[in-house]
């Protein structure tokens, strides 16, 4: 569905994508993990057409990403960047409405308002609709921006660390909603996560990046091993399985001696 072939992108000698190829299926959640500064956000920006790779191509349903038709290309994306600050004099409802930017006119119809409220309701935040966004907490802002991305009715949903500010409850609300709707609507969902356990729990397909290289890809239970964790993060960890067969990772506290080495 979303196919990437031989992607290469570097800023001077900083290589952020080194011959990356993969194919992402619709109706699945694809989770990208990897150390800081390894090119995860860069990869999303490249898929979105915001960064131009030196080599390689990106296709959706066979259609090639072409800089001349960037507008149409982006039409099908719901993209939630990492930055969750909202410092603007708008209400929550207005921010969510902006997800449907192209449909907005000087006079707001009830239909659009109700669609935005529906998006808020689905993630349990209807009661915030008329609040000024500057009064919200970081986590609330993050949920509102998720609602905005949903409002775009995407075919491809890209979330850059969508749970970084969320409490346990909203983590689950967001990820469950994503999971359910990805399967139901056949979205290609791509998200960057740092929590390997959440990644293992929600990923149908896990992509592991290290220094711009795709070092492993597959179902979490097939690829998540202590060796991989050590290789990618340099951290010793045990990988166990819960009763449902989903792997979970527990890092070992590095002792005083280890840190001296």
């Amino acid at each position: 569905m979303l196919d990437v072939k031989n992607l290469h992108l570097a800023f001077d000698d900083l290589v952020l994508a080194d011959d990356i190829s993969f194919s992402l299926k619709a109706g699945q959640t694809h989770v990208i993990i990897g150390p800081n500064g390894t090119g995860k956000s860069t990869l999303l920006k490249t898929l979105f057409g915001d960064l131009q790779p030196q080599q390689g191509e990106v296709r959706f349903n066979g259609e090639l990403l072409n800089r001349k038709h960037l507008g149409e290309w982006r039409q099908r994306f719901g993209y939630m960047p990492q930055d969750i600050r909202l410092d603007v004099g708008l209400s929550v409802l207005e921010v969510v409405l902006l997800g449907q930017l192209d449909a907005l006119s000087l006079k707001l119809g009830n239909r659009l308002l109700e669609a935005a409220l529906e998006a808020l309701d689905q993630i349990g935040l209807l009661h915030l609709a008329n609040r000024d966004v500057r009064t919200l907490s970081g986590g609330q802002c993050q949920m509102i921006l998720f609602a905005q991305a949903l409002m775009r009715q995407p075919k491809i949903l890209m979330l850059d660390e969508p749970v970084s500010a969320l409490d346990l409850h909203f983590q689950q609300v967001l990820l469950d909603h994503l999971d359910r709707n990805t399967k139901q609507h056949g979205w290609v969902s791509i998200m960057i996560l740092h929590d390997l356990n959440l990644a293992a729990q929600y990923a149908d397909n896990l992509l592991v990046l290290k220094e711009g290289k795709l070092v492993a890809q597959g179902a979490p239970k097939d690829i998540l091993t202590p060796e991989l964790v050590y290789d990618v993060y340099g951290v010793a960890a045990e990988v166990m399985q819960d009763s449902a067969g989903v792997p979970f990772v527990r890092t070992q506290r590095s002792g005083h001696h280890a840190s001296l080495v």
Partner: protein
Amino acid sequence: MIHSTLVTDAVNAQRRSEKRRWFVITCLMFVLLLSFVFDIATGPSMLGLTEVANALANLLGLPVEVSRTTQVIVTNLRLPIAVMAVIVGGSLGVGGAEMQTLLNNPMASPYTLGMAAAAGFGAALMLYLGSLGMSSQIAVPIGAFVCCMLSASLLFGLAMMRHITSGQLILAGIALLFLFQSLLSLVQFVSSPELSQQILFWLFGSLTKATWTNVAITAGVTLVCVLVLMKDAWKLTALRLGEERAKSLGVNVTRLRLKTLIIVAIMTATATSFVGIIGFIGIVAPNIARMLVGEDQRYFLPLSFLVGAFLLSSASVLSKAIVPGSLFPIGIVTAIIGVPFFFWLIIGKKR
């Protein structure tokens, strides 16, 4: 649906907030009308408000009795100035509003980005060159306009580059401001004292240069520019969420930035070339508008116009009232009113 009453409540609350913002806009229209009438009434010979109202009604074709002198004063002397105050104030307000939106900075305005300084330099250069043989009434505005657009085109060039941030644009604008101020000082330095005096007077900013032709040109340009900006109202609102997020919502940020910058430059260049440099309205008006209606551009943009128009119109009244019988340059008055407000704004931010 369980939540249907909650949804209805939220829709109603949104509608109420829209109505409230319309109410604010209507109020501003009303106070603007008042200051407009006062502006016509004040001057070397004071007119009564009813006289002014009658003369205006007469102009609109209503059968009202007005003395011939009053009619002439209103139509030929006061009205062009009063209308110019409204249009230029409005255009400065909108220009400031969109600069602040574009650069994501409440302290930005065409003035702080050197556009006004460039216009001042252009006017001064024209005066220095003896208007190139043309009438100075025509040559000086042209010089100001051209120079303002030239300076702005440096900013356009930067804005077109894909990875220039708004912070870098502001820095470049401030550098241009200093450059043109220096060039302006240079022209004044090499000019004769008489010429230097003329330049200085132009720089003060004054509405007395308004003629019906100037007014018509400025009104036409401003109207077109404001309508084009209104068409992008939602995109400009989205831009305030940050450039990256605006992109993620499908806005072509580079194009929008360039387009808006060009429109603001044209508006500013036109207004400044006819009335000289008028500071602070571009910064202050949008900030007042933002406090009153928030940043939904459907309301923010027109209100910035109205607040700017009201500020300049009332400054015009004040400039005539400070020393009765004489005309104080309005550029001086706006800065004197503007500075205390500016301070209040800075301190208010801290809360």
